[in-house]
């Protein structure tokens, strides 16, 4: 049984989703090709190695070329994140514990599926590939409510980080029109998903955390701290650097993630709001090491 507050939130979101129904084949026209190396596809300030000697040492055309492969990687991450999301949401449709949320879960599934059409078309048509997913999940036993809580909490972390990029790039007039439009379309739906995500994460934590042992609660918190790191590590994809023509791509990825200060500052800035939300509600007791 869900709370009255969450039920009302879900009902409002259902109404908003119905008013925002879209046809993904009409919302966005994809040209046959895009000018790689000429236009920006990722805002320069959001490129993974921005603020590092490696980025500063590239000429303008190289930076713009990298911005294209950064976009292919960003959209690939979204595809993998949303595939996991679709699987998890589908499993929770008409779950007895969450049955009153099912009308909104239908919209959530519908909207995420449409997003993947945008991301997948861009990656396949212009990049010729979707970068592979490098995350691995282990099956294990869960305490009551733990699996659903972790699922929605991971979704929230992933989507809030992604949405920071979407919001910034939806407004960036320097960007290629298709890349900018995909970011804008994604953000328009994500705003509702994030409201839902924060509500359901808080509610599941309040409902179940008191039933968990100290060991389970510690493991849940460690998992979430580690998940921030997993999400961010995938932004530094060696294959993306390789495709952009950068030498020693694995070394660059590792150095940028582990040693460079400007990328670390970006990770902390982007993650701040989500971390603060988790701290405020006692879900986390400390900040992740980013």
């Amino acid at each position, binding site marked *: 049984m869900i709370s009255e507050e969450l039920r009302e939130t879900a009902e409002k979101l259902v109404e908003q989703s119905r008013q925002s129904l879209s046809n993904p084949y009409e919302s966005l026209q994809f040209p046959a090709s895009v000018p790689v190396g000429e236009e920006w596809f990722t805002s320069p300030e959001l490129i993974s190695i921005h603020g590092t000697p490696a980025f500063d040492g590239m000429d303008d055309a190289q930076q713009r070329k990298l911005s294209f492969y950064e976009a292919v990687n960003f959209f690939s991450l979204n595809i993998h994140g949303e595939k996991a999301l679709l699987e998890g949401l589908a499993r929770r449709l008409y779950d007895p514990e969450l049955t009153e949320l099912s009308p909104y879960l239908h919209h959530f599934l519908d909207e995420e599926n449409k997003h993947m059409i945008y991301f997948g078309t861009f990656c396949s048509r212009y990049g010729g590939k979707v970068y*592979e997913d*490098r995350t*691995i999940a*282990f099956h294990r036993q869960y305490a009551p409510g733990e699996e659903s809580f972790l699922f929605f909490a991971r979704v929230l972390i992933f989507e809030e980080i992604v949405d920071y990029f979407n919001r910034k790039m939806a407004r960036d007039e320097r960007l290629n029109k298709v890349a900018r439009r995909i970011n804008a379309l994604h953000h328009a739906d994500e705003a509702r998903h994030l409201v839902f995500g924060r509500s359901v994460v808080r509610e599941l934590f309040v409902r179940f955390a008191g039933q968990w042992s100290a060991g389970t609660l510690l493991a849940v918190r*460690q*998992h979430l701290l*580690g998940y921030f790191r*997993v999400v961010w590590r*995938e932004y530094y994809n060696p294959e993306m650097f390789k495709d952009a023509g950068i030498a020693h791509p694995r070394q660059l990825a590792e150095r940028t993630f582990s040693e460079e200060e400007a990328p670390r500052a970006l990770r902390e800035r982007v993650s701040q709001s989500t971390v603060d939300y988790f701290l405020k509600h006692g879900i986390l007791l400390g900040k992740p090491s980013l």
Partner: protein
Amino acid sequence: MTDHPEVREALRGWIAGHNGSVSPESIADGTAIVEQHLLTSVQILDLIVFLEGLRGESVLMAELKPGVFRDIDTIVSTFFSSR
């Protein structure tokens, strides 16, 4: 005599360092790393990056089979057997 002793020692040190409550010496080649919760799913991507550094070559995720991170023996045979 086991193959790739230097890789095994590096793995023991890495796992112990990321677990924080076990010593490298307590991790045998057949210790069940995941089953005994020495590492969790959110640490595996860091482990993959570490393995890529050790072998100097990328790991293709599509080629990984279930259980490849079960223990040090399996990791070494999976990622270093032909080296």
